[in-house]
């Protein structure tokens, strides 16, 4: 039987196993919306802005490991989605984004709501496709999912002209596709793995530095086996938190600009660095000239272009983290050589010494609420077992420092692009994936206002999020830099005319709370968490002068942190 392009679209997604799709309708996608209306296998979530739709799909993808799916209309629908696409691209998150397009015969005509979606998204997608014939539609959709989810994951855009969705053809959804131009690597080179192991076992001051790749590659278990087999210290990037249990003794905290003193000092002094699924970002390395001056470096990554991009490495291993880590564990278990016990013991003594500086300490006697105190309490009240999304700014760094993630896919934030506005819609995607879980969005009064309209979506779909707004009345991260590096000239970093967040939440039909005394923090959090069936917006009025410590200043090496 012949189906229309719109029906083929819906059937393809069903066959692909898609259960939820985030989007916003418009002229170019009306046939598709009509086909969605006439089925009940895929739930469509109507956000209030296309940026919200892409972030929600992104939150769904980060928390589940399955691709997030989005549909938006042509022109402004597609351009509104770009921020979300770029956010997913920078953090290698699998999304498939369908954009409506004007009918084929009008393309290039400056037609109503026409934009060059392929051209606009090209620099921020893993790949994109324009469907030019309805007979190619099903296979293109299959390819889009294949490319988005394999190798180094990333967003893929499929641009579908309106006439294609009305034309008819036979439907067949392929089980598999192969593309001669796209063949991601899986297993690492055996010889390279052997060389790496030799280095690792000879190390006297080893350091394991892991990133988002361990989470994307579902390798937290193998990472933990490897690290514990060797008793080596582990640090995670902002994107890698949860890949190794944060409450374990071997975990030395996050590294980088706002990482811990012990993690950065251990990086600086290590003699063998084992980098796994991490990309030597400038927020991590600090001044590249001063980075790990005495280390031999092993780097495992699925993307050859991540290797030796910023830092030249000694043993590159291209492959899927999980495979490579499992191979390493097996080889080490089979080897007669063991790490040098005395040297490793001495190394741990040194690390404990750095750790004893207690670099995350803060003032516990303040009259004002300290943001760190809110996050410590949040960790306690949720038993460390919540999904936590965040926006971008100081609150994000404090959440990363003070919420100890023991499991992967629990910490959901925009690291690469640093997109304010990400937190709330991402939390919606997480809650939809895990309806019974506690999902907390840690945000600031600046960031939350960038996608605040999504509070309406939360009402429509009864999403009981817990929003922790660390309201310092300023764009704190900007203010901090202005205090440190611009002699306190606070250009545009104060927010005037903030809304009454309690009333705002209430007007959307949610519960609002304002907390301004340190003594009330924990009880307010408990009260909010006890409300299982409603969204609670907690507006914590925090100390506006608080800064994120420790910090590697611009141009500094990892051993040059500013401590409080």
């Amino acid at each position, binding site marked *: 039987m012949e189906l229309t392009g719109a029906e083929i679209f819906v059937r393809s997604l069903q066959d692909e196993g898609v259960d939820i799709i985030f989007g916003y309708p418009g002229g170019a996608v009306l046939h598709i919306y009509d086909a969605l209306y006439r089925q009940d296998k895929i739930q469509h979530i109507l956000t209030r802005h296309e940026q919200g739709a892409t972030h929600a799909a992104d939150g769904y993808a980060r928390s589940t490991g399955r691709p997030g799916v989005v549909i938006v209309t042509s022109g402004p629908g597609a351009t509104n989605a770009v921020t979300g696409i770029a956010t997913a691209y920078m953090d290698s998150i699998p999304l498939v984004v369908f954009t409506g397009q004007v009918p084929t015969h009008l393309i290039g005509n400056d037609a109503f709501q026409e934009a060059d979606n*392929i*051209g606009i998204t*090209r*620099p921020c997608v*893993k*790949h994109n496709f*324009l469907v030019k014939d309805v007979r190619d539609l099903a296979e293109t959709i299959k390819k889009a999912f294949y*490319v988005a989810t394999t190798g180094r994951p990333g967003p893929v855009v499929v641009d579908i002209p309106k006439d294609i969705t009305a034309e008819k053809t036979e439907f067949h959804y392929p089980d598999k596709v192969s*593309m*001669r*131009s*796209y063949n991601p690597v899986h297993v690492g080179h055996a010889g390279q793995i052997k060389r790496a192991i030799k280095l690792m076992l000879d190390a006297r001051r080893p350091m394991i530095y892991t990133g988002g790749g361990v989470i994307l590659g579902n390798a937290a278990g193998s990472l933990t086996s490897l690290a514990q087999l060797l008793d080596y210290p582990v640090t995670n990037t902002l994107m890698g938190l949860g890949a190794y249990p944060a409450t374990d003794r071997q975990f030395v905290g996050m590294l980088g600009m706002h990482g811990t003193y012990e993690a950065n000092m251990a990086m600086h002094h290590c003699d063998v660095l084992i980098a796994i699924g991490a990309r030597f970002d400038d927020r991590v390395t600090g001044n590249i000239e001063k980075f790990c001056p005495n280390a031999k470096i092993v780097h495992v990554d699925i*993307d*050859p*272009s991540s290797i*030796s*991009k910023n830092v*030249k490495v000694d043993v590159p291993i291209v492959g899927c983290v999980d495979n490579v880590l499992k191979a390493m564990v097996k080889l080490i278990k089979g080897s007669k050589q063991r790490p040098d016990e005395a040297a490793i013991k001495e190394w741990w003594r040194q690390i404990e010494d750095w750790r004893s500086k207690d670099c995350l300490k803060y003032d516990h006697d303040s009259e004002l609420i300290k943001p760190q105190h809110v996050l410590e309490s949040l960790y306690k009240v949720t038993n460390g077992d919540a999904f936590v999304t965040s926006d971008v700014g100081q609150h994000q760094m404090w959440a990363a420092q003070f919420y100890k993630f023991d499991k992967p896919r629990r910490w959901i934030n925009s690291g690469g692009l640093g997109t304010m506005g990400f937190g709330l819609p991402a939390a919606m995607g997480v809650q939809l994936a895990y309806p019974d879980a506690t999902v907390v969005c840690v945000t600031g009064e600046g960031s939350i206002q960038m996608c605040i309209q999504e509070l309406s979506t939360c009402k429509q779909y009864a999403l009981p999020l817990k929003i922790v707004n660390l309201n310092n009345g300023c764009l704190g991260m900007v203010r901090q830099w202005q205090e440190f590096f611009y002699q306190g000239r606070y250009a545009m970093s104060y927010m005037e005319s903030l809304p009454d967040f309690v009333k705002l939440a209430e007007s959307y039909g949610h519960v609002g709370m304002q907390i301004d005394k340190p003594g009330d923090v924990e009880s307010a959090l408990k009260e909010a968490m006890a409300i299982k069936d409603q969204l609670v917006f907690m507006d914590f009025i925090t100390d506006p002068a608080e800064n994120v410590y420790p910090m590697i200043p611009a141009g500094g090496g990892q051993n040059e942190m500013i401590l409080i």
Partner: protein
Amino acid sequence: MRHIISILMENEAGALSRVAGLFSARGYNIESLTVAPTEDPSLSRMTLVTRGTDEIIEQITKQLNKLVDVVKLMDMTEGPHIEREMMLAKVRAEGDMREELKRVSDIFRGRIIDVTDKTYTIELTGAGDKLDAFLQALDQGLIIEVVRSGVSGIARGERALRL
């Protein structure tokens, strides 16, 4: 160092802009870029000439390989290879200059392919530096117009860029 990179890519609309976009987005320079379909019409072959340190060239080839439309590529400069570029030069050719221009053209193995009473159009093929040398050998005032095809390259011997 100067590198000649040859790329086989899917002959899809937009494939060229993916390569050009990659170079501008990442700040790599392109000296020349040529593209045409191959004997297999589903593939096109692109030749690009770029400059950079070894690290930059390594990143360029990795980033090119990462493009989903790129099937295969080869850095010609890594082995013995032949480089050719075609040039058409229109020059003012009057009076005794006509003889002189013919002689210079012959020395460079050029061919005069169009003649008027005031001009010659000379066709010349060779490596880029030979074409440069030819232009330098001419009196600059005589050059009316020059068009160059951009570089193509092929490896010597058995080495080949094919599927």
